[in-house]
């Protein structure tokens, strides 16, 4: 499942890059992220309760920031598994100057497996898109909160 899009942040790439490398901000912005513990350079263990309404699953896994090219781009590698199955995400994020701000172009390759994949196909795409949208909204909020 491919989910692409772009979001603008009104801060220069350097600042946005910082934000997208701040574990605390990432934790707060990631929907359902309960824990995010640094276990190495750019490597985190996470516990996330992901889903919508009653259909939520708790996934344990790792988040890794790869192929860093500050402040231009990096890749997020997310691997999680839990009772509803597993989720593997390979997300490329690109930070492009746009006016005074930054346009973040993202392309998420989301792989879902196990029970939830076999039942949820009707809505997985839409829900995934929505969750990713929420993530970026919250990151924008993080930036604003920081600015104020």
């Amino acid at each position, binding site marked *: 499942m491919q989910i692409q899009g772009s979001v603008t942040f009104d801060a220069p790439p350097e600042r946005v890059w910082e934000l997208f490398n701040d574990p605390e901000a990432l934790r707060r912005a990631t929907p359902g992220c309960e824990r995010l513990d640094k276990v190495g350079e750019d490597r985190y263990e996470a516990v996330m309760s992901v889903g919508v309404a009653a259909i939520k699953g708790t996934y344990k896994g790792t988040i890794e920031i790869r192929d860093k090219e500050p402040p231009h781009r990096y890749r997020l590698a997310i691997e999680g598994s839990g*009772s509803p*199955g597993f989720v593997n995400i390979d997300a490329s994020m690109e930070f492009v100057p746009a006016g005074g701000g930054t346009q973040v172009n993202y392309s998420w390759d989301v792989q879902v*497996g196990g*029970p939830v994949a076999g039942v949820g196909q*009707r809505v997985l795409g839409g829900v995934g898109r929505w969750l990713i949208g929420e993530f970026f909204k919250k990151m924008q909020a993080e930036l604003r909160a920081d600015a104020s």
Partner: protein
Amino acid sequence: MATRYFGQPIKRNEDPRLLRGRGLYVDDVQLPGMLHMALVRSPYARARIRRIDTSKALAAPGVVAVITHADLPANLQGPLPPLIPHPTLKHHKTQFALAPGQVRHAGEAVAAVVAESRYAAEDAAELVEVEYEPLPAVVDMEKALEPGSPLVHEDIGTNVAAHYTQVVGDVEKAFAEADLVFEEVFRPDRGQAQPMETRGVVAVYDRNLETLTIWDSTQAPIRIRSGLAELYGMRANQVRVIAPNVGGGFGPKIMMFYPEEVLVPWLAMKLGRPVKYIEDRREHFFATNQERDQVHRVQVAVRKDGTILGIKDVFLYDTGAYIPYGLIIPIVASCTLPGPYKIPNYHAEFKAVFTNKTICSPYRGAGRPHGVFVMERIINRIAEELGIDRVEVRRRNLIQPDEFPYDVGLIYQDNAPLRYDSGNYPGLLDKLLKLIEYDQWPARKEQYRKEGRYVGLGLALYVEGTGVGPYEGARVHVEPSGKVWVATGVGTQGQSHQTTFAQIVAEELGVRVEDVEVVTGDTGAFHWGTGTFASRAAVVAGNAVALAARDVKAKALEVAANLLEASVEDLELADGQVRVKGAPQRAVSLGQVAVAANPLRGTIPPGQEPGLEAARYFNPPQSAFSAGGHAAIIEVDPATGMIKILKYAVVHDCGRLINPMVVEGQIHGGVAQGIGGSFYERLVFDENGQLLTTTFMDFLIPTAMEVPDIVIDHQETPSPLNPLGVKGAGEAGVIPVPALFVDAIEDAFSGYGLRFREVPLDPNRLRQALAEAGVPGAGSTAA
């Protein structure tokens, strides 16, 4: 003359119990102290198992045992026994009871949890921690053949399990001499039988009697019995397998073995308590065998008058992760393709390909729908190319009634020559055209078009190999009460054997059908046999029943002759009596004869066996070939791609009919499954081998709103190969449906050059194709 039972639409003996909710299905078996098994299944299509930690699961409430591959005894650790070998099947890879270090399809069993209830077992199954190392999966059978493709079984260095070719005549010559040559590619997709009852196994071991009793929703209890005895190192008579009422089979319930079938009895012995496993519907989607996906590349050589000179069909058969059932499906596919037509030169070649998907084994039709789909698409293409009516093209290629037995020139699934025993194909075609009013169709179609409606007529013919060997047997026994007790080895999953076999006996012994009790699928009642598949039960077991009944009749006459002091020639069996012809007052009841045949004192004539009883076997020399034709009129809404079937007609020839009502019921059900497989039911895997359709919310079995009324006409061409002259009818309904379905839709849009090469279709695909073809109302295709 005595009442006739054979050939009559007689109400079923099995129904009163079923209607009262008193059937006995495997899940209805409840034993004191019974434990319940749930399985931990791989979420990955292909992965290495790094580590399994069962400690949390073992600690969970109500848990009695948690088993992984390492805990299995040696005899259950290896690959499970292959079912049907074949000389060209080089790599006969079979499934495991529990995955040994690697999983090869999503849903493969990794660990077994046994607990006091299924609820507790499922709770604990979630606590089994399995650490997987995911590997790239092979999902598409064509990609599986590309160099560098991941391998489902690394050790064999290829994804090709077998490569098999059969040739009739001189195909190259045919193509050289042809006026018209063309090529097509056809892609039937994957589906599943989905009986309303999932699979289930219950086992209990009696330590005192040292006997293992198993209730199994299988179509082949005797094979399972023999196989398990061998696997566990027991005598066959220590193992009793009962297939009680089975809630639909349609093929996948004749597997040997599903992991659960070896795990549950072993756990029952190991734990000393009865154990039950009932597959749930979600499991059924990936743990029960599937079928149907093939890719056919076919080349055709035709003369300009439409007669077919030669066909070269090279296809791939996706067998999934393992191939226990061997090559039956692709062999049947290539042997069914010629159908009722004369194909003097025919090259049939296939590769069986491993992929990281659920195992394939026969599902109702078992390759026949594929062969018919390809052949009937070819005929229509010829009609289009040469501007000859599609029915006329069929006529010009049909095998004629005086050409039987007709040797197709291939070797069939039973390793016997593919020789049609009898038939009248032009007769079938004529009846079919009458039933669907083909002569009035052009005018009607024009009228519809005037009204702006897109309505098409589709038709398809087929020949179906049925009643394959090797054999079945039956015992017929008359009780002192005069009631008759029949036992045979085949299992039954709704085919009405308790009635049709009773009719055969009633006909021979002159008793009422309701006085004949038929026991099927219990190795304790009859322990020789093969199983219920390939539309064979009525043919093979039915004739065994007839032979046994005739022996009983002969014996009854002999014994009664003494009692009545009459000669055998003067006696007849009727109304439950043996009586003197013309003097019905001189009679003894069959019960009295049974008593006399089994005296408690006195003597029995030398050579005679005690009791009014006989057991006989029937081994058909080869298959008997049923045939038929279906036609349908289908309307399409081009704006939505939704369809409505306005009429559905079937003409069917399965030799002599034992019970027309039952045969028609079989056809109705087959057609409904065919409609499902043509427009509704598809198993969808993503690029990683995840099955996306594991509920009835996404795998769409037709409801009463989607299945039309079905008109049926019969033709009876008896088979010369068996005493009853019968042929099989179990699969007939499903076989031609995809072919005629697509034909009807193409006909509805004739003039737009639409050609469908894939089934199932669906509203989305259909609307898309119509839009691309520029059909008004279908809209643009711009995304």
